[in-house]
């Protein structure tokens, strides 16, 4: 047994509205270990970490660092005491350069800025921790992997004793993940203590010494990682056995529904976001789009769904050029979509469930004078709530009061319940609970069976590999690989090589 570094003593956190995020959690982190915190989404991992990092105050309980009781009111307090955190969404300022982000908030810096001094300081730290960050770049121009390493460097340089990494691999390719793990092992050798939050079992197994499992805001125990089987961990995490296998019968694709040729798009900085993209999507197939976040997937989504018109090239929806077809008309023609950011683009969170369900086709629910047919609305809404297993009290409940998974189900219910010819999905299961994920996966497969043409953009490679019939990989806006996954399956590692731009297929059939 090592020396205790941090002790969490019976932390309980109750949010306004009575939601209990953490209930009586106690755990101990030892000097120099990599300690995994695992649990499903909503198990209370993030809340616990925010408490450790001074972003939330616990309702009761205490934190001790080297046996000294900590009173953390802000992140500043936490950093001062030696607790640093790399957030899932990087706390970097995109418009500033690496060194500016690096020196931001550092104690004891002179009032006047000396660029060269700061840059040298960054390079020295970089050398010490071997992270290979180029501090002279604007953050906006860095790869995701480098941004993350800049974050780690920034925090280590502040002399933290404990480094918290919140789902650090969620945004990385398999290769970048390996690289990160190699760096973390080095840091461990240098004596840095690391808390590693994840819900991916193989990663936990690869990197952690001990793990603590959270479920429904409670601590299910801390174990040395070697002594636990994967089955045991998932059982503790979920509380039931989970079957991860998805049954997908072979299916011959039908007619072409969406055909896109030579798509090009650039952003306001002149950076090309889509480069000569060709896509053909047939009825009854699922086409997966793989790629590291920010390699043109969102642009492709916006262009294909008619939300962005500033592209060059042509898109045909069932043979018609869509450039002059409005989003509303596309919707009526049978194009459905699930956007990546459900709170911003998927629902109007202040409105009720039924308003969100029916607003695109509200004309079906009005009398000829325009008055709403409340009874019909209520019946249909209840039916959808039932069909899509949305946990809600009534159709008139506001969407923002639902959990993430249920909000996503509202979006899915709206988009899947019409006459769907094509379905464009962007991260349909990001950040929702396992139950909702498997429900939505089942629904996607049902739509495939019914003959919808489905495009699935996802950064969850497991999801892509288990659902897709064909997979294409995007890198810097370009299609760099196409696989017929249904006939000859590919692996995560293979995809990763293309996602990182290490490999590129020379000739491709679309």
């Amino acid at each position, binding site marked *: 047994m090592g020396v205790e570094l941090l002790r969490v003593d019976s932390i309980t956190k109750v949010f306004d509205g009575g939601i209990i995020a953490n209930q009586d959690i106690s755990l101990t982190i030892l000097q120099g270990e990599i300690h995994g915190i695992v649990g499903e989404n909503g198990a209370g991992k993030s809340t616990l970490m925010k408490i450790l990092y001074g972003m939330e105050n616990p309702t009761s309980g205490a934190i001790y660092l080297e046996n000294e009781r900590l009173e953390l009111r802000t992140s500043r307090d936490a*950093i001062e005491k030696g607790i640093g955190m790399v957030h899932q969404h*990087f706390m*970097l300022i*995109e*418009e500033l350069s690496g060194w500016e982000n690096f020196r931001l*908030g550092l104690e004891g810096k002179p*009032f*006047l*800025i000396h660029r060269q001094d700061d840059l040298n300081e960054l390079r020295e730290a970089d050398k010490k921790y071997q992270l290979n960050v180029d501090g002279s770049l604007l953050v906006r121009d860095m790869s995701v992997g480098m941004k993350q390493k800049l974050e780690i460097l920034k925090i280590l340089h502040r002399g933290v004793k404990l480094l918290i990494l919140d789902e650090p691999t969620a945004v990385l390719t398999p290769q970048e993940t390996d690289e990160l793990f190699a760096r973390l092992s080095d840091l461990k050798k240098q004596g840095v203590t690391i808390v590693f939050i994840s819900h991916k079992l193989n990663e936990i197994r690869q990197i952690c010494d001990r793990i603590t499992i959270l479920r429904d805001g409670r601590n299910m125990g801390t174990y040395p990682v070697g002594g636990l089987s994967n089955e045991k961990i998932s059982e503790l995490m979920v509380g039931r056995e989970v079957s991860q296998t998805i049954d997908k019968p072979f299916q011959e694709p039908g007619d072409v529904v969406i055909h896109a040729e030579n798509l090009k798009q650039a952003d*306001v900085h002149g950076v090309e976001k889509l480069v000569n993209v060709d896509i053909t999507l047939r009825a009854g197939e699922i086409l997966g789009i793989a790629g590291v976040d920010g390699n043109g997937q969102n642009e492709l989504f916006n262009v294909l769904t008619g939300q962005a018109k500033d592209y060059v090239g042509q898109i045909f929806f069932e043979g018609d050029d869509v450039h002059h077809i409005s989003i509303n008309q596309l919707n009526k023609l049978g194009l459905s979509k699930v956007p990546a950011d459900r709170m911003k683009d998927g629902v109007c969170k202040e409105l009720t469930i039924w308003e969100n369900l029916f607003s695109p086709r509200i004309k079906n629910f009005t009398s000829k004078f325009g008055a709403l047919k409340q009874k019909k609305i209520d019946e249909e809404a209840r039916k959808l709530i039932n069909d899509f297993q949305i946990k809600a009290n009534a159709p008139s409940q506001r969407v923002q009061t639902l959990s993430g998974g249920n909000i996503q189900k509202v979006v899915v219910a709206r988009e899947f319940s019409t006459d769907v010819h094509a379905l464009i999905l962007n991260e349909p299961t990001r950040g929702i609970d396992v139950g909702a994920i498997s429900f939505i996966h089942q629904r996607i497969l049902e739509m495939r069976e019914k003959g919808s043409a489905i495009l699935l953009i996802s950064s969850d490679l497991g999801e892509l590999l288990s659902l897709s019939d064909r997979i294409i990989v995007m890198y810097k806006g370009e299609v760099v690989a196409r696989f017929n996954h249904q006939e000859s399956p590919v692996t995560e590692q293979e995809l990763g090589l293309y996602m990182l731009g290490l490999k590129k297929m020379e000739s491709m059939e679309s």
Partner: protein
Amino acid sequence: MNFILSADFWFSVLAGTTPVMLATLAANIVSQSGMFNLGIEGTMLMSALMGVLVSAFTQSLFLGMLAGLLSGIILSFALGYFTLYLEAPMNSVGVAINLFSAGVTVFVLTLITGSKVTSSSLTSLTFPAVHIPLIRDIPFLGRVLSGHNLITYLGWIFAVGLSFLLYRTRLGLDIRATGRNAEAAASVGIQTNRVRFKALLLCGIFCGFGGMYLSMGALKSFTANMVAGRGFLSLAMDTLSSSHPLLGWGGSLLYGFSETITIYLQLYSDADLKVISAFPYIFIILVLVIAQLARNLLVRRKKNIQLKGR
């Protein structure tokens, strides 16, 4: 149009630029810190009155200046307090500040002087004009650059100082970081609200001088609603200059130019007075439209797409 070549004309351009430039600096610093101050107009108005009143009653220019600055700072801090601590929407607080100032200034003016329009019955003080040795002896340029009101020169120093502060100092970096991503700034221990109050402090000072220039420099008394839209104009200048103080100065010069040319046209041209009075506004709108079109063109160029004939 011979007047365009005269030193007096260009002197007036620089003088007319001063209040807008100070207002633009105020808008710059606030938006760099990630806020939006719609209340600059009202803040300047209040300072203009307070400077006049206190200097008239104490017969001390210094105390008058302090009063003008203090009222500017108080109104700016009010914006900060309501929006940052009470989480009120920024636009409505700005509008409230404008309405408050427009009403209170006239009320106080009437109470003290009996006039609803002007404070000319009081003998208030003004900031002195400064003649710069050496420079004033340069032919032509000397007559353009020297002899301005003290506040004009202060404004120039502020513009250069503010860009230095923003881009070369720790506080400036903290302000820009807070403005672009307050959450990220807070995560490295920057106290974002404190940083924003520092920005608001500067905003109050700039508004204070801008307002006092009108009532204790350009004119010798306070007149109701004498800011006359310059505070709102500064918000446009701020957008136009992407919140960079030196570019904002350039934008304000355009305003100074158009205002001055209007005055001269009224004296020397036969055109309808109403058309001439509309000139500065039409001019500014044109400049804004052209600037925006140029920006769009640039973006489209950058996008580097040969738009096919669709």
